[in-house]
Structures are given as structure tokens and as C-alpha cells.
């Protein structure tokens, strides 16, 4: 494990940015946001960014290909390019876990080459949480905020940043920074973890359980009468899906530029009425069905297809961003039975 004094963070970032594009959370007037590092950019103190880190691998919009149309003829132009190497600093445990959840979708056969390309070129420097918020419930899904996964796992221990490389990519990057950093035994990190764990145990949502959900529970929950009450105030907007680090539904659309056609992909939301609308009909007629789909997918369908892994990481973004304050915690408490009373 290596460490660097907090007052030398700028030189650390500068050294990383020499070779690779570095992104880190910085404060903006609208909250923390991942931005490209520039000299003097200050790491945000915020617990988490307003938008999740999924944009790095699955951006809100991306061009898939171009077409040239000439009379009856079409030319397909493959616009994919090898992504540049980049480093994301300050990814929290919940968001790091979301990458695994996205991987199981995009890297499953047939592999999504756009996603894979970015994923292969990104190095994740995660940052352990020290002050989890009241809206955090990553522990519900087995995530330890005090000790995230990642290529390089970082911990803030008072006056120093400690860094532990976990993967080949991480080791290569960390060894490049050797001249700036010094070896450390990790005692301070263990101390910090202990404090954070105590804090995590005391969070208001620490006892939230997902045990009653999971693989094969479709029949148990699909017809539950509670969906009506839970969904009644839902506006049908896409806020929860767009701030969610694991929501990955997308739309593919064509855009005629006047000089040709761009086929692009953009985030979509199962909360939108046109998500399943066909010329032949609409299988999800009301907001109840759309609302149910989102939570059934996270708590039942995804686990069914992925060995019990839930597709929620407990980051709490939907808790703070939903315009009507409805969220997965309320859904789990309402439907989860005795475990969550």
C-alpha cells in the first residue's frame, strides 16, 4: 500500500493526468460532478456525485454508426474508435459495484463493443466512504462502503490518501506514481475502516433487508396489491432511472443531419409510456405496470438471471432526486413483509 499527503493531491492528480485523462468529482453549483481534471481542480468533499459514474462506460448518448444514403444505396460507416486510456478517481463503493452489474449485461454474449471498449481503457481509483449519509443503504446489498472494489482502492485517513492496487491495471498505474508516494503499512486504513463500519451500522437504513426479494420471486410480488398505492403519485418521469447507476435500458434512434444519418443510442426509461408502445398495442397500459417493472427488474428479474445479484447498489440517489419522493426503499419496506417492519 502506498500513501501520499493530502496537501500533495494536486501533484498526484497532475502525475496521473500526464499519461491518462483523469476524471474526478468536483463541486459545482448543482452538486458534485465528475469532471476532467485540470491543474488546481479540487476534489469534492461530497459523499457522491449527482449523476452516477455509469456515464463513463455507458454515456447518455453515443453515436453507434453513420449511414450515407445515395438513391437506393446505403453505405454503413463504422465510427467506432479505440477509446483513450482514462482514470476515474473517487468512485464510491456503490458505483464501483454498479460496474459489475452493468458488465453482466453489456459484456454478456453478444458483447457490446462500445461498452467493452471504454471498460477496457478505464482505470478505477475507488474511494472508501468515511461519512455515509442517511440515504445510504449499500449494506443491504452486501456492499461495504468502507472498503470498495476497484483497480486501485483509496482511503482518506486524516492527512493522507492511501492507495492499494488490486488489479494489473491498478498496479501498473500505482507503480508509475512511486516517486510521489511512500509505502505505508495500512494501519491507518484499518483504523479508518473500523470507524466507518461503526458509522454504517448506525445508519437509519442499516437494517433494511432485501432477503424477501431475489431470484424466482416473480409470482410472489408481481400481483401484489401494494403496487397500486406505491405507484399512484408517480409522475412517469425518468429521474430515478437516469440518476441510477444500474439502470441500463436504452433506445436506438436515427438522426438525419442533412448530410447523412447518425444512428445513436441514448438512455431510455421503463417509466416512460412509449417504452413498450408498439403500433400493435401497449402491454403496460398504466404507470402502475411501468413502475412495477422498474422495481421488479432490480429486485427479482435481474437476480433471477444473475445468480441472485440485485441490480440496486443502495447509493440513495433516487431517494434524494425523485420529484415525489418515492423510491426503492419505500418499495422494499412496503412489499418486503416482516423483515422490514
Amino acid at each position, binding site marked *: 500500500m502506498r500513501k501520499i499527503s493530502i496537501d500533495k493531491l494536486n501533484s498526484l492528480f497532475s502525475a496521473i493526468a500526464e499519461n491518462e485523462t483523469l476524471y474526478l468529482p468536483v463541486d459545482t*453549483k*448543482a*452538486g458534485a460532478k465528475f469532471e476532467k481534471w485540470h491543474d488546481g481542480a479540487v476534489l469534492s468533499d461530497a*459523499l457522491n456525485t*449527482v*449523476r452516477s459514474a455509469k456515464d463513463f462506460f455507458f454515456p*447518455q*448518448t453515443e453515436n453507434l454508426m453513420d449511414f450515407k444514403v445515395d438513391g437506393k444505396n446505403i453505405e454503413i460507416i463504422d465510427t467506432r474508435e479505440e477509446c483513450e486510456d482514462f482514470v476515474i478517481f473517487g468512485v464510491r463503493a456503490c458505483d464501483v459495484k454498479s460496474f459489475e452489474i452493468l458488465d453482466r449485461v453489456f459484456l454478456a454474449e453478444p458483447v457490446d463493443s462500445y461498452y467493452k471498449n471504454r471498460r477496457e481503457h478505464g482505470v478505477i481509483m475507488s474511494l472508501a466512504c468515511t*461519512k*455515509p*449519509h*442517511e440515504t445510504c443503504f449499500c449494506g443491504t446489498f452486501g456492499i461495504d462502503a468502507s472498503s470498495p472494489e476497484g483497480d486501485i482502492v483509496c482511503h482518506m485517513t486524516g492527512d493522507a490518501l492511501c492507495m492499494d492496487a488490486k488489479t494489473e491495471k491498478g498496479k501498473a498505474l500505482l507503480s508509475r506514481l512511486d516517486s510521489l508516494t511512500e509505502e505505508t503499512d495500512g494501519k491507518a486504513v484499518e483504523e479508518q475502516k473500523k470507524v466507518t463500519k461503526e*458509522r454504517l451500522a448506525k*445508519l*437509519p*437504513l442499516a437494517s433494511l433487508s432485501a432477503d424477501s426479494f431475489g431470484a424466482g420471486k416473480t409470482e410472489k410480488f408481481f400481483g401484489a396489491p401494494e403496487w397500486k*398505492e406505491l405507484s*399512484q*403519485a408517480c*409522475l*412517469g*418521469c*425518468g*429521474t430515478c*432511472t*437516469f*440518476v441510477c447507476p444500474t439502470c441500463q435500458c436504452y*433506445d436506438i*434512434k436515427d*438522426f438525419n443531419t442533412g448530410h447523412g444519418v*447518425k444512428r*445513436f443510442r*441514448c*438512455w*431510455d*426509461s421503463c417509466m*416512460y*409510456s*412509449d417504452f413498450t408502445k408498439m403500433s400493435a398495442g401497449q402491454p403496460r397500459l398504466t404507470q402502475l405496470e411501468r413502475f412495477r417493472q422498474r422495481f421488479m427488474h432490480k429486485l427479482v428479474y435481474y437476480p433471477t438471471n444473475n445468480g441472485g445479484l440485485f441490480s440496486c447498489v443502495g447509493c440513495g440517489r433516487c*431517494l*434524494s*432526486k425523485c*420529484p*415525489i*419522493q*418515492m*423510491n426503492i*426503499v*419505500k418499495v422494499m*419496506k412496503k412489499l418486503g413483509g416482516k423483515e422490514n417492519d
Partner: protein
Amino acid sequence: MQEINRAALIKRASELLSDGTADRVLGWKAGEFDYDVTPAVFHSVEELEKDFVWGDFCGANFSKYLIKETQKGDGKVIVFLKPCDTYSFNQLLTEHRFDREKVYAIGIPCDGMLDITKIKSMADGVLSVKSEGDEVEIETLYDGVIKEKRENLLPDRCVHCKSKKHVSYDELMGEDGEVLDSGRFDEVEQIEKMTPDERFAFWQGELSRCIRCNACRDVCPACTCEKCVFDNPDSGVENKAAANSFEDSMFHIIRAFHVAGRCTDCGECSRVCPQHIPLHLLNRKFIKDINSFYGEYQAGETIGSRAPTVNYSQDDIEPSEAVERGGDNA
């Protein structure tokens, strides 16, 4: 702190449920924390007593919910309306969006809501938020108990509250207030003073954060089209995401045009924006211009009023007088 308390509202709603005036109540339901209340329909006194809340985070404007709610069942629905909500209520009635006969509207006074974003920016981990007179006590996870003046924690829309007066109700609880002159166009004026380039940069900076979640549209009481132009594949502007940075601006500008003259300035758009884009400023610019070009007009002040933008008169201002072509206002 709110003048009327939860118990008084539950008592009155319960009376109206019991005497058969109405069969359900549109109100705010308690959440996990003090600040995450959700609009909900209550069908019984028991449900009200269990979960109904009224307090500093009951910002949601229920007017738009009445469109769908009044179509369910024959009985009346009780709705609690803050002064600003009554303007949207009237405007929806003007547009014949719901059956007035199916609603029992109770006006309730409001001292302004609290802005959880402002509160959270002061502390890490908010456990509880309690108002005591002009002071707010915030219990936090890591910073102990913080006390702050209420006026510093109001959302912008309440700082610039246009009216404490209810313009529509079946009955009023508590005291009615007055229409206020709270400088709601101050910010608009500042933006007007910018050079066109500065103004463009300002809006580009703000609107570039848009994630096209549509929350502003979906919450807006003036956005009640059965099929929004942005959801219509034949419109040519239907997009879930902007194909370029220009389109984000187009979405908001088109929306502002669509609600111009009908927007009551309730501020829900800015409240719900997950990216904190000051969308209400676009609407206020229209309101300010309508006021200065056609004379003072407040949408929703009375039922049935016609906005100057849809009411031609021979005295209407000529475009050349309103905008100098190529000038700073263009």
C-alpha cells in the same frame, strides 16, 4: 413553521369524510425521513391518522393530480391547497381539465417550504429537521445539531413568493394572506442586463446539465397535453436525449413557449429538477414580458381569464415595438 398543524388538517378532513362530503383525501404521506413526503390518496380516518403529514416539506402542488384523481369514482376528493397551488387550480379549471364538482378544496396558509438541498449543503447526513418559530433545528449524523434561520433555508420559489392569498377554495383554514411584491423578477432583470453572449453562455451552462428526465414537464400543472409533442415520433422533436447540445435548449425553450400565459409561476419545475436548473426563470421572463407588453396579468388569478397571448385586441403591441431586430433583446 406552519400556522396550521397536522392535527387540525386531519380533524377537518376526517369530519368531511364522516359527513359524506367527500370520500377521499389528497394529501402528503410521511416517508422515511422528515423531508421525503409523497403525495398520496387517503380513504379513511385511520389512514390519515397513520400516515398523513403536513409540514415544511409538503411542497408538491396537487392541482395536476386532480385531473386523474377526479376521474376515479363519483365521490368528491378533498384537496389541500397552499396559496400558490390555488393559482394552478384555477388555471386548470380555466382550461377545463377537471370537474370542479368532484373536488372539495381546502385552502391552507403556507409560511414557505424548506429546501432540503440547502439543508443538506450545510451538513453531512440529515436525520431530522424541525421548525421552531423562525428557527430550524437540524439533527445531523456527523455535525451534531445545527440551528439555522428559517429564511435562509427557503427554496428560491418561496423566497420570491408571489402570493400568500388563496384565489380559490371551498373553505379556508387559518388566515388568508396578501398578494406579495417579492421581487420575483429581480433575477430575470439581471439576466436581461447581460450581453447576448453572456446570456447565451449563462443558459447554455444551465441547460447543458439537463438529463432529459422530463420531470419538469411531468410535474408542471400547465403541461397537461394528452400527448406531448416531445413524445410524438411524428413531431420531429421527439427525443429522449439531445442529439446535440442545441436540443437541450430547444426542449426547455419550446416548453416555456407552450406554457407562456398559462404558467402561474408555481415553481414546481425548478423544485423537481435533479440538476437544479433554474427553469422557472424562463417562465418568469415570459410573465414579465407579458406584463410589460400587455399589462399586468397573473395566470390562474381568476377562473376563465384569457391570457393576453391567446386574446387578440387591436391595441396589442406590434412585434417591432417589443423586440428590436438584431438588438440586445433579440
